[in-house]
């Protein structure tokens, strides 16, 4: 079993899992809110909202380097293995679990 760290979100996970099944990491989305401030529509972190802001809508956006290891069955390599949906910023190996 190998432990990995996602370079985009910093999450740590094992793949494959101890039961022999693969784990497909996906980065969490970022919460944003679109507000009207001084006549302009801007997307901000919800915690940066100001009392005078007019909320337009809540958004869920991908972080920079967003990684999605779920496979795309319509995108295969030379050996007909399905590729992951989004490589993003990649991952690095932390350690091998005994």
């Amino acid at each position, binding site marked *: 079993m190998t432990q990995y760290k*996602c370079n985009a*979100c*910093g*999450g*740590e*996970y*094992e793949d*494959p*899992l101890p*039961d*022999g*099944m*693969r*784990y*497909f*990491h*996906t*980065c*969490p*989305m970022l919460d944003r809110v679109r507000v009207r401030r001084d006549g302009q529509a801007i997307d901000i972190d919800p915690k940066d909202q100001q009392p005078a802001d007019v909320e337009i809508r809540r958004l*869920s956006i991908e972080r920079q380097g967003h990684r*999605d290891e*779920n*496979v*795309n*069955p319509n995108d295969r390599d030379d050996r*007909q*293995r*399905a590729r992951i949906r989004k490589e993003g910023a990649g991952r690095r190996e932390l350690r091998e679990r005994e």
Partner: protein
Amino acid sequence: MALSAEEIKQLAPALAPHGLYVEGDDYLLVSAINTVASVVIVIGGRMVQPNGRPKPFQDELAATADRVVATKAINLGDGWLQEITVIARGAAPIVGQTFVRVDLVRGAGAGRNVHGTLIQGPVTAFMRAAWPGSPVQTTIGLPGALRSLTGTNPAANVEIVETVPTGARWRLLSFRATLVTDANAAAREVAITFDDGTTVYAEAAAGVNQAASLTRQYTATRGGVRGAAATGTGILIAIPDLRLAAGHRIATVTINRQAGDDFGAPQLLVEEWLEGA
């Protein structure tokens, strides 16, 4: 008096009354979806050749562990197909983790015609699927495989998100995660949300707050009653009984989350069906 080859060919249906006649352009198309590493699908059977002699056959298909369909076309030559059996080898999948279909097709390439489905059902390292004999089953018609899995341990100030993998269908039975709060004074409240990859369709809140510098274990389970331990550190969240399709997500949402608040890796108990992709 010896029979000619033509006479044997004419008599062969009587020798193999329950066989399916196949010829050079006909193939067995073996398809498998699977979740366990190192599984090899072994297909075996027996033909009666035009000369009346039985001929066993065996072949293998390496199944990928990503729930994506793997296929192999097997040419049987001329004769009467008598029986087929399929079993898993190389690993020990439980019922619901490896599913096989065997079709009789004409042509080996993408433009092939499917004449019939002979086998469609689960296999394990012990349990075979067979033709004739086994019923043609759907992948979601049987109880799913139970899995206890560890998700991603997010960085501090990042919520937990677990995605139902491609080709799977989940029923979440239990979810447990630990939240350690930093020293900033704030009344955090944790909720579990379910979305379709974009839009949240269910949300269940803890109903109790977690203050600064505390460690609490959140357990979300269907049929549970919302509540917190009187002196312990457990907090129970009641969640609905939902079936989650591939790409749907289970996530935490923490109101008043602070920069140093840190979730541990979640542990999930799910019932999983193979949908295939």
